[in-house]
């Protein structure tokens, strides 16, 4: 395979130049992503950072990873972000006024603290060791080396990750699915005929269809044939002038007759 044959742990000038040119730009891009008003600009600046990182990966002998970064991360993930941004509103811009008191100051303080701690910790761990370099690991080529590790030592994680991918895809479909509230006429009539009994196909009768008397003390009938209790005046009830409602209710026999 074609090695980049960068020397290990070296103060080799090409890598140093690469680093010192690209790293500040990456940092500036990240800061810009933080600070710009429009979300689309943030997305683009993030894409820049990712490309820079891909270059760094390649510079560090992680060829496979560098290309995957460009293809998957920048190419797929960032594009996905841009699609959603377009759905949500390309023009939408956040107001940069902070409405939680002290949030900004606290977060900057936290950032400085966090950064300082991380740098100091990891620096302590790493700075007095020499980098071994990937010459031996990449002896058969980077892709082969990764494949060799992936399918032997990390095969279980590999399988689980693939399951995760499938589940994620399903999850996205479930989440993004929306019930169409508005059914078409055709769909409505199909649903109507799919109810438990054909008797309900035409729906329930309107009020007055089953009315047989119009006297004040005779109850009105509900669509299912039972007497409506509120259809008789309360005064009549209080006077004791009501009559039993049962004879006036529709029984199934009468319904069938009707």
């Amino acid at each position, binding site marked *: 395979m074609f090695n980049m044959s960068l020397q290990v742990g070296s103060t080799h000038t090409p890598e140093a130049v690469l680093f010192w040119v690209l790293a500040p730009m990456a940092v500036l891009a990240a800061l810009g992503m933080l600070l710009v008003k429009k979300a689309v600009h943030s997305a683009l600046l993030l894409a820049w950072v990712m490309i820079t990182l891909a270059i760094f990966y390649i510079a560090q002998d992680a060829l496979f990873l560098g290309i995957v970064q460009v293809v998957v991360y920048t190419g797929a993930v960032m594009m996905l972000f841009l699609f959603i941004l377009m759905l949500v509103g390309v023009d939408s811009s956040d107001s940069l006024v902070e409405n*939680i008191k002290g*949030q900004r100051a*606290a*977060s900057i303080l*936290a950032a400085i*603290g*966090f950064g300082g*701690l*991380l740098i*100091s*910790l990891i620096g*302590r761990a790493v700075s007095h060791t020499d980098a071994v370099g990937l010459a031996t690991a990449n002896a058969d080529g980077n892709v082969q080396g990764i494949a060799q590790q992936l399918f032997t030592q990390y095969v279980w994680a590999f399988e689980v990750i693939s399951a995760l991918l499938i589940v994620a895809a399903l999850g996205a479909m479930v989440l993004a699915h929306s019930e169409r509230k508005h059914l078409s006429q055709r769909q409505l009539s199909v649903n109507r005929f799919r109810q438990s009994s054909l008797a309900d196909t035409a729906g329930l009768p309107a009020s007055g269809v089953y009315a047989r008397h119009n006297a004040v003390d005779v109850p009105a009938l509900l669509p299912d044939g039972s007497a409506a209790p509120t259809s008789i005046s309360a005064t009549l009830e209080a006077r004791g002038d009501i009559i039993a409602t049962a004879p006036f209710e529709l029984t199934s026999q009468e319904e069938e007759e009707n």
Partner: protein
Amino acid sequence: MTTRTDLVFLIALPLFSSAFLLLLGKIANKWGHLFATAISASTFGIGLYEFFAMRSRSGDARSATQHLFEWISVGTFKVDASLLLDQLSICFVLLITGVGTLIHIYSIAYMSHDVDRRRFFAYLNLFVAAMLLLVLGDSYLNLYVGWEGVGLASYLLIGFWNQKPAYATAAKKAFVANRVGDVGLSLAIMIAFAQFGSVTFAGVKAGAPSASPAALTAIGAMLLLAAAGKSAQFPLQSWLGDAMAGPTPVSALIHAATMVTAGVYLITRSNFIFDASSTARLLVVIVGAITLLFGAIVGTAKDDIKKALAASTMSQIGYMILATGLGPVGYAFAIMHLLTHGFFKASMFLGAGSVMHGMDDEVNMRRYGGLGKVMPITALTFGLGYLAIIGVPPFAGFYSKDKIIETAFNAGGTRGILLGGAALLGAAITAFYMTRVFVLTFMGSKRWDDKAHPHESPSLMWIPMVLLSVGSVASGFLLSKGSALVHWLAPVVNAGNAEGGKELMRPVVVSELALGVVILGVFTAIVKYGRNVPVEAPTGSVLTRFARRDLGQDDLNHNLLVLPGQAITRTLVATDFGFIDGIVRAVGWTLAYISTSLKKIQNGYVRSYALLMTAGAIALLATIWLVTL
């Protein structure tokens, strides 16, 4: 020391009778009083039997003991419940049971209209049992049990008609004043145990010669405090006047003859302490002298017959206490006066009860007058008691009181003159106010209106009065014939070891002096109160008004003790509420404050929660950073 097995019945019979009558309740209402009187009489019988048995023995065998059971055994502190009947105790046993039985008989008639008569007799029996335990105990602790018992009985009996709040308050006052004295007794017992390792009389007596003077004085002072509480001596005398709220038989038995003499018994029994500490003896005579004058002055201004007699009791016990501080021979004279006083004072109190019974419970002497014609027997018995108390020969008080005055003069030096002079002055004032009482009640013209129907009391009431007045007449002569009582008590009080003592004046001179001042007092009273006594009490001079207020004793107690006590209580309550509860509330308040402040972190915004998570992560990292330094 003889061991006997029947001493316990002296206490057990009245005690069980009391419990029996109280527990049976209404069933015993018809016969309870008779049962109680029978028990009291049988106790007197046992006492007499013991007395004759003791007389038939001689020397050291006269003392009898009975061991009941082992009571307390804690480490080195061992106290047995044992009884000791020696020459001193038997005098008291006879007095308590004898006078007690007579008063039981009297009460059958006096309390015949009272629905709670059974309860009254149960309490009387309880008192007899407790008082007997007091005089029969062989250690200070056993005595203390009886001491507390009589305090309880006194409280129950003073407040017998507790439907009237004033009577219940009087009972409480008596109990509280007694309690102050009881503290003294407790402290004396504790000091005795610390010093001698024992609280029995024998043990303390054995250890007294080798104890430090400070301890002896302390014990003596504490015992004096206890005696002052129980015997209504200065400064704990304020309860005796109020104790007259109880029925008259109670006043006769408890507050004349027996309970109030318990203090004298205590000091006499502890003679080995007082003989060894001249400071304690000095305190005793001071208290006695002050009280005898105090009581006498108060008695001159009282229009209530019972309160006048109560003041008289206070004064006479002052004489007894004075005598006990005058050395070994004084004890015998104190006991003699105690016994004679038991007779004539009880007789006078029963007479007062009889008068009240006849006058429909009126106690104001200004509404009496001329009752001698209507109640001859009462007037006669009362009169004999009156002659005895003022010290007219040959009645009882003459012998006992003159001996005390004589011994007081013989104490020597300035002290002797002062004490003897005080005793003489007391005798004069006693004569004055007792004559006042007698003249106001039984002589002169009648000052009662026609609504009252004074009549002689029933026989069950005047028979005991007559029997007691026999004692008023004869007891003094009998007890002092051939120094009978002195010799009888000599083994107990070491009278044999008394120095001869210089006689300041010959006894007959003392008697003549005493008689002289008595006649002066009687004459003055007759002149002032013989006729034209106003029914409404005149305002009187400053001294009279002051004496009517008991020489300010209640005001003094109130200002000295009650008000500061209430101030302390209020301060403590305020401290408890403000400071201690305040601390607790401060804890709660602090927690509430903290949580209110912390509550503000939850503002619902996801971003601030994210910030908090970051802060947490930083904290973790910082810890790791510190650890790996």
